[in-house]
């Protein structure tokens, strides 16, 4: 069995809002990423993808608070570690995180190489600027980015180039696990493809051991990741390998998401998009039973009574529904 790079057990984190209310945006999430594997996280906006990504690093700051659960990176349990230590010895080195819209947060008055100097000098005090430059250039070349970018300001780069630069900066310290939150969502298809190519390259060249890739675009996940986890209202509702998750989803919500895929292939024009009606529940007051019940086509009265547990199938596939796999498949066949 391959080495487990990241293991998360029953992680729960919450936001405490300005008004003192608790929002459980990550609710008992467990996951495992093996060495050399990529995990995809899908779900609509507001379902807790970004919060999960932030929580995975073990570095919490208001309004986000740790509640319970464990995070184990390469055999090292980091839950309950003090924040300073996490920042010093974990972030960037063990696990790196590219926040959503990171590329727009670059300080426009500083050249790319200066960001790189900051990152490296934080961890290696006595390195010379020349060494930093050489290291950065080598990394950029490996990733197919022109070295001139180093001497440019963020505004001089196109969106796609900026995003790829951000990714390159985030793997400078050779983290074991990279978490990329919607790295391609604000880009056009061409730039998006370059970002995807780069993520694949990172895995292939061994610069990172494992990848967690967050996006709502299923076709992208399908092309990058080995496993896909679908989140809904802070919980995992289905986890499967990419092929099964895309072509053969079990959970009604996952099924609905797959119905929104558009790819330019023959016969597409006759496909009817299956939009999921309604909106996700308010996480301040999550419903008692199945959180998807309000929007589910197959809802039964008992769905709304007790919280629904994850069911595990053979081969490690899991989903969260009161129905068995056969019952759901039958329901889908009948429309």
């Amino acid at each position, binding site marked *: 069995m391959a080495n487990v790079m990241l293991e998360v057990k029953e992680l729960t984190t919450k936001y405490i809002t300005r008004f003192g209310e608790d929002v459980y945006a990550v609710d008992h999430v467990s996951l495992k990423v093996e060495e050399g594997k990529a995990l995809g996280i899908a779900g*609509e*906006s*507001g379902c807790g993808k970004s919060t999960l990504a932030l929580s995975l690093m073990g570095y919490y700051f208001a309004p986000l608070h740790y509640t319970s659960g464990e995070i184990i990176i390469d055999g090292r349990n980091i839950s309950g570690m003090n924040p300073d230590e996490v920042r010093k010895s974990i972030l960037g080195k063990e696990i790196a995180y590219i926040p959503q819209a990171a590329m727009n947060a670059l300080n426009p008055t500083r050249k790319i190489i200066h960001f790189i100097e900051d990152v490296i000098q934080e961890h290696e005090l006595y390195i010379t600027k020349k060494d930093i430059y050489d290291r950065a250039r080598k990394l950029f070349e490996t990733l197919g980015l022109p070295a001139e970018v180093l001497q440019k300001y963020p505004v001089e780069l*196109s*969106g796609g180039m900026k995003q790829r630069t951000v990714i390159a900066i985030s793997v400078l310290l050779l983290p074991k696990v990279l978490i990329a939150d919607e790295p391609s969502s*604000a*880009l*056009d*298809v*061409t*730039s*998006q*493809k*370059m970002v*995807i*190519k780069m993520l*694949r390259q990172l895995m292939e060249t061994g610069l990172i051991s494992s990848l967690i890739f967050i996006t*709502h*675009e*299923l*076709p*992208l996940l*399908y*092309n990058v990741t080995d496993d896909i986890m679908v989140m809904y209202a802070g919980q995992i509702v289905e986890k499967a390998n990419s092929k099964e998750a*895309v*072509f053969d989803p079990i959970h009604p919500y996952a099924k*609905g*998401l797959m*119905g*929104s*895929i*558009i*790819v*330019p*292939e*023959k016969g*597409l*024009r006759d*496909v009817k*998009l*299956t*939009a*999921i*009606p*309604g*909106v996700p529940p308010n996480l301040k007051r999550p419903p008692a039973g199945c959180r998807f019940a309000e929007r589910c086509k197959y809802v039964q009265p008992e769905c709304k009574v007790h919280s629904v547990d994850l069911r595990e199938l053979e081969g490690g596939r899991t989903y969260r529904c009161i129905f068995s796999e056969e019952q759901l498949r039958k329901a889908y066949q009948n429309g």
Partner: protein
Amino acid sequence: MADEKKLCLSGSGITKVFGIGRQKTVAVDHVDFNFYEGEIISIVGESGSGKTTLAKMLLGLISSTEGDIYFLGQKRDISSQKKKQEYWKNIQAIFQDPFSSYNIFNKIDSVLLDCIHMRGGRKLPYAKKVELMSEACSFVNLKFEELTNKYPFELSGGQMQRLMIARIFLLKPKILLADEPTSMIDACSRATILDMLMQLRDETGMTLIFITHDIGLAYFVSDSVYIMEHGKFVESGTADEVILHPKEVYTQRLINDVPKIYEEWDLSTV
């Protein structure tokens, strides 16, 4: 068949140049087009290819440097504020970024009321206005009662775009120009938005000009497709022609760039 189609919006040699001297950019470069009534037209191109600039010229929000635009077979005249307002009763738009499309100081009611007023409903009794607004909201699956006194930024991106559609529902223009209406929202809401747009078009028979960088989306929605590269239309035709049998390298590249799931996605081409 061919003679049944009536020209709705057409243009010849439309050009837009920004800046002068060394800073000159030709955003749109001598494009010609014929958009027919009731059609769904897609304009596809990568970022910076000039799609939004063309859209703004079609809307009359910016003037073109060169070229003429014809509306319903006649040369478009928007020389005065009055004529512009008249023109805008016929053509409306949905913009790319829902978060910057609304005035953050105006409540949702006022957005919808403006539309009723524009259609000449200023003197209607308030109850009738509420009825109209509720109808528009329920068309896009929103509840008007829950929206009154709210501000647009209190909605999610998907809901804001739906509110935009509700606006169009009230205005019932002849032409709707949708500039990447789904690029800023998640895939799940995208399906909902597309669904509603199609339904609205089927009900009103309006001409829909759909701008996108995702050729898959264009194929999914449109009857005819125009491919734009560096301000020029490099290829156009019916959706099937252009997307299933692309002639131009650029079109092929755009098709290749859309992620595939049924076949191998070739990443080596970028």
